[in-house]
C-alpha cells in the first residue's frame, strides 16, 4: 500500500485553515449515533476524549492506572512551548515552526509542524480558561523560560510540575464529561488488541486488571493516545507502567510503525546508582537555563573527585572544562538534547566522568546563585551585601524557580544541590518514533488513529524540550476532534458496532490464549530479568551511539532472548485476579519484538540525524552527518511476521519552505 500523507494543497500558512473548512461535518444528531474509543488518558487521550464528548460523540476511555489523572504526562516537569511572543523577543509561528524542523534535524513533515506551531498559542488560552495555574510575574501576567535549541523565551510553566497542571486541566475537562455520562471511563483496564472488521478498526479487546475479565468493546473509530515506548530500554525516565503494547498490537494488525529508532536520550538525569535500579529520574531541562555543565580539565582532578579527596567546589574556574560553552559558544548549555547528551558521553568515554562509575558530569548552579543574589540585593536595597548574604538571596531565587526539582534531587542522592553541583548523566526519555499517521492523524488502518507520543508525527529525529506537551494537547484539543469527522461522516448510518462477530471472537481468543500460555508456563525466571537484559542490549547497541555490527548482533541477541523468555518466564497467580506480573509479562513480550524492529530501522538508516547517531557517519568534529540525498524520508514499517523482517515503506519528506542545512549550534 502506498503511503498517503494527505497533506492539503496550498501555501504552508493556509493549509490547516483550508483543510478545516473542507472537512466534512457530522451533524449533532448523528454524532450521538457514533462511538469512539480512546485508549489513554494522558494529555493526548484525555484532551481528545473530553473534546469528542463535548462535540456529541459517545466516548469510552481506557487507562491502566487506577485513575485517568495518573497518566504518565503527570510527570512532565519543565514546561510547554507556545508562540505567544509575550516576551516580545521576536517569536512567531514561523520561528517555532522553524526551530522545530531544525531541532528535528529535518526529518519531520513541514505541514504537520506548521500546524502544531499555529495552534500552540490557543493551547495556552485554553488551559488558562480551565484554571491551570501557570507561573506569573508580579504584574499578574504569564511568565516564560527558555528551553534547549532555541534563542527565545516561549516556554510556559508551573514550577517543575507543568505536566501535572496541564494533565489535571485535561482530567478536569474529562471528569466534566464523565459526570454528564458522555464519557464512560474504564480505569484499571489494559487494551490487549485492536479488532479489524472489513479492513476498518472497529474496536478493542481489553482486560479488566482487577477481575481479569477479557472484554470486547466496539466503536466506529479507535484513537490510541497510549504514550511512548522508552521503557524498551528497561531503565528510562518513563513511569514503570509505560509500554508499547497498544501501539505494537496495532502494528501487528496492519498499522505501520514509523522511525522506531528515533529515541531521545535526555542529557540531565540522575545517574544510575546500582543494579537494583528500577527507573531513572529526570532533572528538567529548564535547569540548563541556569545550570552550567562541566567536568574537570585534568585527569588528576577527576581522580581526586572520585575518591573524595577533592570536592567539586575546590576546583577553580580555570580547572573546569565547561565543555558545552567551549564547543557551542552561541547556544552554550542550551544546545538541543541530542547534542548535549553526546557531548557528555564523549567526555565520560574519555575518562572525565565524575562519579565512581565514570558516568556523570556536573550541573552547577553556583554562578546563577551569585548572579541572582546580586540582582536581588539591588532590588531589596541591601547595601554592600556580604558574599554569604548574596548567596542566601540567590539561593532563594533559585528555590522559587526550581525548588521541587532540587528537593527531588536531594531526596534521591542525599546531596544538597544548593551547595554542591548536581551529578547528571543522559538517560532514555522520549521516543520520537511511533505509529505512522497521515495529516489527519489516522494510521494506515482506516478508523485507527494515534495521538501524542504514540504517533511519530511532529518531532522528526529529535524533539525540542517542552514540545511534547504542546503536541499532546494540540493533537487532542485542536486537531483530531476536527479531522476524525472526515472519516466518521461515512459512518452515520452504520449503527452500533456489534461485538458478537467472528472478528471479535478471534481477537478475544488470541488474547486469552496468550494469557493462559503465560500462566501455565513452566518457567522459573521473573519477568524483570528478561526486561533488564533487553534493556542492556538496547542501551549498548541502539542507544546514544550505534554501529552496523552492534545492531546486527543486537537483532540476533534479542531473538534469542525472546525464545528464552517464552521458555523460562514464570508468571505466578491466576488470570482471574489482579496480577501485576502477568501485566508485565504481556508488556515485555511486546518490547521484545519492538526492540528488534528498532535495531533494524537503525541499521537501515545509514546516516546520523538527531537522536540517531551512527558512529560510521560523523563529521571530523564528531557531529552528526546527515545524508539528505538518500534519507530524507520517513521509514514506515509494515509487520510481516518476524519484527526485523518488516517491510519498509518510504514517505519522502518534501521541504518547500525551509532549506536543509547542517544543524549548527556553534
Amino acid at each position, binding site marked *: 500500500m502506498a503511503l498517503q500523507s494527505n497533506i492539503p494543497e496550498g501555501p504552508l500558512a493556509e493549509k490547516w485553515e483550508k483543510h478545516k473548512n473542507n472537512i466534512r461535518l457530522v451533524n449533532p444528531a448523528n454524532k450521538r449515533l457514533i462511538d469512539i474509543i480512546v485508549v489513554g488518558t494522558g494529555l493526548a487521550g484525555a484532551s481528545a476524549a473530553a473534546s469528542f464528548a*463535548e462535540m456529541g460523540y459517545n466516548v469510552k476511555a481506557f487507562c491502566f492506572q487506577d485513575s485517568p489523572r495518573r497518566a504518565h504526562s503527570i510527570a512532565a516537569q519543565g514546561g510547554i512551548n507556545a508562540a505567544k511572543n509575550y516576551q516580545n523577543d521576536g517569536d512567531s509561528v514561523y520561528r517555532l515552526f522553524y526551530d522545530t524542523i531544525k531541532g528535528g534535524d529535518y526529518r519531520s513533515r513541514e505541514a504537520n509542524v506548521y500546524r502544531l506551531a499555529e495552534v500552540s498559542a490557543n493551547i495556552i488560552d485554553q488551559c488558562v480558561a480551565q*484554571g491551570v495555574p501557570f507561573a506569573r510575574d508580579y504584574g499578574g501576567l504569564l511568565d516564560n523560560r527558555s528551553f534547549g535549541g532555541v534563542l527565545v523565551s516561549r516556554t510556559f510553566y508551573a514550577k517543575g510540575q507543568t505536566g501535572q497542571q496541564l494533565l489535571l486541566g485535561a482530567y478536569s475537562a474529562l471528569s466534566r464529561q464523565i*459526570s454528564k455520562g458522555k464519557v464512560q471511563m474504564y480505569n484499571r483496564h489494559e487494551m490487549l488488541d485492536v479488532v479489524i472488521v472489513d479492513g476498518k478498526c472497529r474496536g478493542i479487546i481489553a482486560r479488566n486488571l482487577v477481575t481479569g475479565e477479557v472484554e470486547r468493546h466496539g466503536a466506529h473509530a479507535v484513537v490510541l493516545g497510549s504514550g511512548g515506548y522508552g521503557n524498551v530500554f528497561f531503565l528510562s525516565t518513563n513511569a*514503570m507502567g509505560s509500554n508499547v503494547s497498544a501501539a505494537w498490537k496495532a502494528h501487528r494488525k496492519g498499522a505501520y510503525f514509523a522511525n522506531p529508532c528515533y529515541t531521545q536520550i535526555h542529557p540531565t538525569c540522575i545517574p544510575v546508582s546500582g543494579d537494583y535500579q528500577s527507573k531513572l529520574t529526570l532533572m528538567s531541562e529548564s535547569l540548563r537555563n541556569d545550570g552550567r555543565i562541566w567536568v574537570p580539565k585534568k585527569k588528576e582532578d577527576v581522580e581526586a573527585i572520585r575518591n573524595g579527596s577533592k570536592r567539586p567546589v575546590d576546583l577553580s574556574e580555570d580547572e573546569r572544562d565547561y565543555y558545552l560553552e567551549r564547543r557551542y559558544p552561541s547556544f552554550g548549555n542550551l544546545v538541543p538534547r541530542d547534542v548535549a547528551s553526546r557531548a557528555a558521553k564523549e567526555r565520560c568515554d574519555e575518562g572525565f566522568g565524575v562519579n565512581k562509575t565514570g558516568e556523570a558530569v556536573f550541573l552547577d548552579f553556583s554562578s546563577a546563585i551569585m548572579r541572582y543574589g546580586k540582582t536581588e540585593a539591588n532590588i531589596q536595597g541591601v547595601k554592600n551585601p556580604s558574599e554569604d548574604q548574596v548567596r542566601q538571596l540567590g539561593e532563594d531565587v533559585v528555590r522559587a524557580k526550581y525548588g521541587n526539582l532540587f528537593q527531588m534531587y536531594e531526596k534521591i542522592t542525599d546531596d544538597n544541590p544548593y551547595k554542591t553541583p548536581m551529578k547528571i548523566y543522559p538517560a532514555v526519555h522520549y521516543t520520537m518514533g511511533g505509529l505512522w499517521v497521515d495529516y489527519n492523524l489516522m494510521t494506515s488502518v482506516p478508523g485507527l488513529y494515534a495521538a501524542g507520543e504514540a504517533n511519530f508525527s511532529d518531532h522528526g529525529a529529535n524533539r525540542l524540550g517542552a514540545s511534547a506537551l504542546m503536541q499532546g494537547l494540540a493533537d487532542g484539543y485542536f486537531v483530531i476532534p476536527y479531522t476524525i469527522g472526515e472519516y466518521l461522516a461515512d459512518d452515520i448510518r452504520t449503527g452500533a458496532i456489534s461485538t458478537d462477530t467472528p472478528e471479535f471472537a478471534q481477537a478475544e481468543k488470541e488474547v486469552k490464549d496468550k494469557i493462559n500460555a503465560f500462566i501455565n508456563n513452566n518457567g522459573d525466571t521473573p519477568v*524483570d530479568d528478561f526486561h533488564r537484559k533487553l534493556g542492556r542490549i538496547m542501551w549498548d547497541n541502539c542507544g546514544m551511539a550505534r554501529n552496523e555490527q552492534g545492531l546486527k548482533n543486537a537483532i540476533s541477541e534479542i531473538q534469542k532472548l525472546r525464545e528464552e523468555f517464552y521458555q523460562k518466564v*514464570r508468571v505466578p497467580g491466576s488470570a482471574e485476579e489482579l496480577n501485576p506480573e502477568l501485566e508485565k509479562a504481556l508488556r515485555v513480550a511486546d518490547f521484545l519484538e519492538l526492540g528488534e524492529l528498532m535495531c533494524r530501522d537503525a541499521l537501515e538508516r545509514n546516516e546520523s540525524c538527531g537522536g540517531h547517531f551512527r558512529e560510521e557517519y560523523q563529521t571530523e568534529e564528531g557531529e552528526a552527518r546527515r545524508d539528505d540525498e538518500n534519507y530524507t524520508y520517513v521509514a514506515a514499517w509494515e509487520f510481516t511476521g518476524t519484527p526485523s523482517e518488516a517491510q519498509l515503506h518510504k514517505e519522502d519528506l518534501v521541504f518547500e519552505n525551509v532549506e536543509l542545512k547542517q544543524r549548527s549550534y556553534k
Partner: protein
Amino acid sequence: MNLTLKIWRQSGPNDKGRMETYQVSDISPDMSFLEMIDVLNDQLVREGKDPVAFDHDCREGICGMCSMYINGEAHGPGRGVTTCQLHMRSFKDGETIYIEPWRAAAFPVIKDLVTDRSAFDRIIQAGGYVSVNTSGNTQDANALPIPKENADKAFDAATCIGCGACVATCKNSSAMLFTSAKVSQLALLPQGEAERERRVLRMVNQMDLEGFGNCTNTGACEVECPKGISLENIARMNREFLKASISSES
C-alpha cells in the same frame, strides 16, 4: 542491610487478610523503598510464591499511585515524601518494618496493598472543573491578569497528587484536605468564579456520599501530606461552603 518485613496480605476484597512475615537481605541504603519491595517480590517469584501487589507508576512522587502505610504512618517516616520517594537510608539494619494498605471505608482493599480510590475521581466529577468548552474559542491568556499571590496559592493547592494519604492518616477518614485543595485552587482564580457556590456544595455532598468521615481539625492530614497541602485550604473551603449554603437557602 537485613530487614524483617511484616506485610498485609489479602487475596481479594472478600478475604479477611492477615500480616505475614518476610526477610530480605543485602538491601542497599541507596535503594528506594519500592525497589526494596521489588527485591522481595523477585525472591517470592523465584520461590514460586505470590508476590505482594502494590500500586506504583511514576516512582518520582507525582502520579499519586503509590500508597503504603509504613510503621503506622502514611508514606512512612519523613515529611514531604511519597512512598516511592522514601529511601532505605531512613531505616536501620535489622529493623522490622510494618507495611499495610490505606485503611478507610471509602477505599476498599482490592488486593494486598492495593486499594480502590475511585471515590476521589467522583468527587472531582461532582464539580472540580471549570465548565469551559475545549473548542479554543477562549480569550487571550493574558487578557485577565491574576495577582501573583493568588496564582501562587492556587498553584500550591493544585499540586495535590490525589494519593489519599490524608484520608489514610485521619482517624475519621476524612477527605477534607483533598477536596478543599481543588475547591481552593478554583476559588482563588477568576476562571472559577462563576461556578464557585455550586462547586463547593456538590463536591462536599459527594464527599459525604462516598462515606468519608467528618473533619475534627486534628491536622494529621497536613502533617502526612507529601505535597504540603495546607490546612488553610480546609478553612477556605469551610468559608466557601458556608457562604454557598446561605446564598442557596435565600
